[in-house]
């Protein structure tokens, strides 16, 4: 098998493990629920076309994350920087044994997404990558093609904004 065919096969063997994560990721990056599937499709389609930049011996997620960020960022720019609607109909499924626990979790997740809305897409990408996905900052900086110091700077600002927005949401709920 040629090298290209080998890489293609490696990609096809592995990408399905990341479908659900990618759908969540593009939502966290600010894509509306109704567009998440199409954007995720764009990410994997773009990845397929850019397999020459994929190293099968390295984790796939950082590479996919970088592609997702650029697609969401370009999409945002094409809309003139306007935020997408977060409040959209969304199918929610869960496996919690108790519905009240699940609903409480869902409310928390909504608060996270709403707090993320206060960040720029660049800050959001660093925050999602580092503080939700747990990626090391240097790895994240490489995925996003930014200097490490820039990644730290964005994460610092992102945390401040997120914390402020999250606190506001929490207080608003309790009062």
């Amino acid at each position, binding site marked *: 098998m040629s090298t290209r065919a080998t890489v293609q096969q490696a990609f096809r063997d592995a*990408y399905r493990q990341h479908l659900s994560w990618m759908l969540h990721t593009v939502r966290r990056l600010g894509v509306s629920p109704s567009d998440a599937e199409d954007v995720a499709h764009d990410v994997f389609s773009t990845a397929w076309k850019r397999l020459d930049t994929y190293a099968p011996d390295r984790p796939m997620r950082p590479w996919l994350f970088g592609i997702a960020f650029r697609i969401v960022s370009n999409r945002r720019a094409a809309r003139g920087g306007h935020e997408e609607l977060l409040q959209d109909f969304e199918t929610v499924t869960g496996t919690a044994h108790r519905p009240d626990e699940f609903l409480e979790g869902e409310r*928390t997740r909504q608060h996270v997404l709403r707090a993320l809305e206060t960040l720029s897409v660049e800050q959001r990408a660093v925050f999602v990558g580092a503080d*939700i996905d747990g990626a090391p900052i240097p790895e994240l900086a490489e995925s996003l093609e930014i200097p490490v110091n820039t990644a730290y700077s964005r994460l610092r600002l992102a945390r401040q904004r997120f914390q402020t927005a999250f606190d506001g949401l929490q207080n608003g709920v309790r009062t």
Partner: protein
Amino acid sequence: MSNELQPLSDAALQALSVERARPPAPDEELLRLAARLEASFALPELAQPSTSAPTVAAKGLRLASGAKVLLFGAGLAVGGLGGAQLQARFGTPREVVIERRIEVRVPAPPSAPPATPLPTPEAPRAVDAPRPRPVEARAPKPSPSAIDVERLLIEQATSALSRGQGEQALAACARHAEQFPAGQLAEERESLAIRALAALGRGDEARARAAAFRSRFPDSLLLEAVNAAVAEPAGR
């Protein structure tokens, strides 16, 4: 420049951990996305001369030299990856079967000319000539079969287990057990659940389930993995 970061509050960290553990996307959505992707992955190969071309033609593509061809929609029924094809894809990853169907309308010629190389499809346009029935219209979205859903759940469990997320693996197994108690992949599900329980330190549950596994699947090829998962550490 200092790279010190201000930590988030405990409440925010807790909320992020809840978001991190967000339930997987609905199976229907995952299957639909996988089907769309498999179709798009296959598209570039259409342009290359290969042995797949006659196969495509044999699927019912009727093209005549000089005929006006109408391609509906994008031409390719991108969603035309049926459940059987998904099953083939998921079951034997190296033997991809993707059915590409193209809806065409061909003006009925007085006599059909001999087969010729495929012409370049034209953009959709009206044709005045009488039109025969379109060749087999297809629904754009695939309807996943039970085995597709089974495989997806098992994949989710396997993937979660490989990432050390025992709870999520167990949740996927529970969903499989709920939907397919005696499904075709019940044996695989049980072995995964046992391994997940063992990984979570729930040894008693893992051993009880392993005993049931041995009784239910005495000849299973997965017995070795099951036994290894519940084996007592040496020296105990």
